[in-house]
């Protein structure tokens, strides 16, 4: 048996190391049985929580024996229980607390898989309403920017898992009451971006492509493993702009955008105005894909402006409006 002793905290700048740990432990001799030790676990941002849960799911699917140890005395035990982490891990522990309304603060983890097809709008809006409940009932785009952006981002990320991952994932959203941020995390234990390209064989596919190349490519506009393919309905359903848009929206919201898949890891930190993204090849490949968005709440007020900037920066919208005559 090998033991994965979880770190105390995982913030954005610890995500690359955390994904490496999750991947590395499964490569060790004796890893057909893995103990996950929670004794130090204090705070995990949503992306880290979803990656951990997706990895546990993968290990179980791979028929490894998985034990969660020192759970009850973990500093984050109550938080993890409120997030339904243990319930979704298959460990349904009795609760020694009253569940309060989570609205306005966090969204418990949700499983994402093909069963959500045709219901993506419903779950995305439900999640957005959890973190910005007051805006859910309004119908004025000038006052509902944060709600609309969370719904937009969550829906695009869920669509990616349904269309590409070929494995389940998890999504979580947290709004920090004492900090000016909202954080969205989603991770799956599927085939990863590079394999999705390899299977779909889009025109840019190259067998020499590394995981990091694949992650970089996925962040370019119009890069999709499926943009050239027909669907069951005989036509494309994907133009491959989802991730590139989320990266640009995050930049516009002075945030941190992270995408990790296999050994490829990309992080653009606009919050700390770092001029270049952090692009690394992880020492052990994470078996799946993680996407995390940390957004400044105060920058989310104007969804329209963020969309406009993002589309223009990606060359997906011309300045001026050559199509004015088509709108009535």
């Amino acid at each position, binding site marked *: 048996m090998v033991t994965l002793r979880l770190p105390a905290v995982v913030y954005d700048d610890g995500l690359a190391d955390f994904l490496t740990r999750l991947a590395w432990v499964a490569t060790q001799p004796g890893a057909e049985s893995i103990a996950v030790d929670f004794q130090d676990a204090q705070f995990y941002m949503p992306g880290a929580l979803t990656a951990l849960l997706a990895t546990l799911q993968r290990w179980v699917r791979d028929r490894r024996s998985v034990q969660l140890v020192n759970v009850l005395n973990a500093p984050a035990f109550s938080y993890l229980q409120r997030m339904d982490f243990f319930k979704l891990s298959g460990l349904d522990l009795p609760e020694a607390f009253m569940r309060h309304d989570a609205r306005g603060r966090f969204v418990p983890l949700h499983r994402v898989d093909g069963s959500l097809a045709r219901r993506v709008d419903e779950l995305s809006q439900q999640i957005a309403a959890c973190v910005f409940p007051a805006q859910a009932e309004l119908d004025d785009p000038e006052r509902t920017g944060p709600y609309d952006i969370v719904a937009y981002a969550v829906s695009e990320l869920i669509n990616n898992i349904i269309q590409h991952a070929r494995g389940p994932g998890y999504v979580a959203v947290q709004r920090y009451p004492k900090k000016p941020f909202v954080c969205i995390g989603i991770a799956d234990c599927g085939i990863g971006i590079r394999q999705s390209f390899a299977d779909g064989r889009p025109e840019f596919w190259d067998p020499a492509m590394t995981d990091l190349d694949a992650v970089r490519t996925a962040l370019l506009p119009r890069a999709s493993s499926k943009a050239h393919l027909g669907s069951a309905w005989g036509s494309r359903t994907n133009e491959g702009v989802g991730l590139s848009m989320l990266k640009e929206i995050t930049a516009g919201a002075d945030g941190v955008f992270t995408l990790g898949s296999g050994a490829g890891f990309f992080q653009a930190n606009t919050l700390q105005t770092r001029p270049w993204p952090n692009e690394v090849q992880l020492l052990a490949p994470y078996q799946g894909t993680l996407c995390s968005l940390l957004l400044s709440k105060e920058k989310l007020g104007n969804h329209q402006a963020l969309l406009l900037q993002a589309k223009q920066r990606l060359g997906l919208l011309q300045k001026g409006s050559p199509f004015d005559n088509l709108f*009535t």
Partner: protein
Amino acid sequence: MNHELHLGPQFGAFLAEGALAAEFRLREIEPYLHTYERITLDFTGVRNANSSFINALIVPLVEIHGNESLRKLRFQGCNPIVRILVESALTLGVQKAHEHGHHVSA
């Protein structure tokens, strides 16, 4: 003759899935594009949408049918968010048509 399609009643206030948009386009728009003089997509009641839905709805129409689609399509009841997404999809459709060697202009 005008073929009016109302997306709000069909999909609700948030248009979120490209696969549903592609189904709708193939069932409700493509078969009628050559028949009707005008096809109006009415977004009244739609509060929000994502790029996946709007692109899957519109990009292939412009990419494949070029000037005919731009002559016939009209967009009604778009709030500012939906309008940005629709304009972007039209832009992408024109770009892709040009890449296929078709001359398309608004």
